[in-house]
């Protein structure tokens, strides 16, 4: 019952935030000096009739809040509208690009988190030894290397030394899909390894130094038991939070690998939409990414209550 109330409350606040932010973004975009009409007319000849027609079609003569309401109503009923530049169906555009982005996010976060946690724990257990220095050093170096550079360097390397490596075109089956996203996912995973690995390590070290670990040792438990059942369990809770937020945030950072590896995902779509002032796409993608983030943080909160009995559901 308590949990149910908590869920309802969280969902409500999520919805409120979504509305607020989407409204803000909607208004802010319209405050920029890009005029939707010129965007839509693009290279076509601009005539008063055309302007009139477009204004009517996109309801640009309505006040902003009405425009917003129309738009959000459409979004809620599954109609994302048409974009300004090519007049394409935004929904279709996004849907066709979602698999790649989701694939990247899921694959990179799974691989990245697992490796990060393994490396972090391994380093923590060997604290102060050369192997810890090596692992922590590696994580530091990774967190320093800009991911777009890493992507480019790896791409150059792959095409030069792995003859059959193909990074172009679309995919027709799941195997090809995996193949397209594997390397980019690994590159994205590096960020996870760098960030999460360090957090895992320091959390794990903190936990290993806490009094209850001494108690567990005094009980005569096996070291592995102490490490994994007690220290790890405690250490992993905050790691999960960070991981969750990183996963949600990585939807935005797919941009870079998508760009470099010519992957048809929503990151690239977003960049070009921003460059072209293609507001309908920007709006919906911001909403989408925000939604993903909020859902993720919601999931984390729920997970927290499961993992950590101390969390009080308020």
């Amino acid at each position, binding site marked *: 019952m308590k949990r149910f109330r908590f869920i309802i409350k969280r969902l409500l606040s999520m919805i409120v935030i979504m509305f607020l932010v989407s409204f803000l973004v909607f208004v802010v975009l319209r405050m920029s000096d890009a005029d939707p009409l010129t965007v839509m007319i693009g290279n076509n000849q601009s005539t008063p009739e055309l302007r009139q027609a477009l204004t009517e079609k996109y309801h640009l003569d309505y006040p902003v809040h009405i425009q917003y309401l129309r738009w959000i109503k459409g979004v809620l009923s599954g109609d994302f509208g048409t974009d300004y530049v090519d007049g394409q169906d935004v929904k279709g555009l996004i849907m066709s690009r979602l698999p790649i982005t989701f694939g990247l996010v899921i694959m990179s976060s799974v691989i990245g988190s697992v490796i990060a946690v393994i490396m972090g724990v391994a380093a923590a257990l060997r604290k102060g030894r050369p192997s810890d220095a090596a692992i922590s050093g590696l994580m530091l170096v990774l967190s320093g290397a800009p991911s777009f550079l890493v992507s480019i360097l790896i791409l150059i390397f792959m095409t030069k030394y792995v003859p059959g490596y193909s990074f172009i075109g679309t995919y027709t089956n799941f195997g090809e899909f995996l193949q397209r996203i594997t390397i980019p996912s690994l590159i994205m995973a590096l960020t996870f390894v760098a960030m999460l690995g360090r957090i895992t390590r320091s959390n794990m070290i903190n936990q290993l130094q806490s009094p*209850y670990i001494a108690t567990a040792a005094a009980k005569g438990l096996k070291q592995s038991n102490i490490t994994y059942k007690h220290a790890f369990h405690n250490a992993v809770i905050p790691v999960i939070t960070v991981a969750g937020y990183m996963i949600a945030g990585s939807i935005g950072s797919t941009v870079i690998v998508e760009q470099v590896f010519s992957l048809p995902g929503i990151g690239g779509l977003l960049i070009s939409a921003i460059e072209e002032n293609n507001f309908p796409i920007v709006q919906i993608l911001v909403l989408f990414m925000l939604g993903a983030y909020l859902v993720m943080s919601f999931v984390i909160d729920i997970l927290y209550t499961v993992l950590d009995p*101390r969390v009080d559901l308020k």
Partner: protein
Amino acid sequence: MKKGNVLEIKDLSVDFMTVRGIVYAVQGVDLEVKQGEIHGIVGESGCGKSVTSKSVIRLHNEETTRYAGDIYIRDDSGEKDVLAMSKKQLRDFRGSTAAMIFQDPMTSLDPIMKAGEQIAEMLRAKKNLNRREAREKVIEMFEKIGITPAEKRYEQYPFEMSGGMLQRIMIAMALICEPKLLIADEPTTALDVTIQAQILKLIKKLQQESGTSVIFITHNLGVVAEICDSVTVMYAGKAVETASVVDIFDHPAHPYTKALLESNPRESDTEKRMKSIPGSPPLLYEKFKGCAFAPRCKYADDKCRSCVPVTENVSEGHSTACFKWREVTSQ
């Protein structure tokens, strides 16, 4: 090892490597604990009580700790040298031969594991019980030491319980495998007097029932008087005096013991102003040339400041490390 002794510590030194240098936390301590007695260790904060007691189960981080001396412990299968144990032996020995209770029960329990399960877990590892058997045994133990309602308490997490209750859980945990030696490191310091009285009574009762030997660490002389049979007084990493509890109170032979007793406010004191020991205890970054207490001691002379006093017998079962013990006792 002498007969009737459960624990013998001989010339134990414990050094820690720290960022500020080596800490010589314990510098040649001798300690004997007899079968079935409660042996108190008192002394000021930082004098090495906890370090000594943790050494008994070798709980310090092996990488930054160096032990010297011997720790022998006797259980059903005979004498054992703790410092020579392998990891596996150590693991079997911890909890079943010697168990430990810590000062702050709140942080000493895994915050996200049910209290009961933390004990059951130990049973399952040590006694190869299955989940249900372990649970039954834990609940039985809970009932015995007044953790009621036992079934409910088993399911509770540490944060849902009060300090007194948690300390009981700790005690249950320590005693569940019926150890030969129980080390209680200031188990009541964090508790209120009323709860302290409950816990002391409980420990005493359990000790009498099971015949377990107890090392009881405290800095409260009242608690010593209340529950200990014999006492070791520590100062700056050394054991300065060992005696039965009555001897300590009635015939202190070391100036430090004496001063400690005098500075303790007592009901019977009519004088409002109390005696205090001037100065403060030394840091342990080096070994001392002379007696560590010499700078604060009113009996001290040049010899005290330059030579390390050896332990001398004052009477049967009463020994002290002081050149001036005769002077002290004669006053």
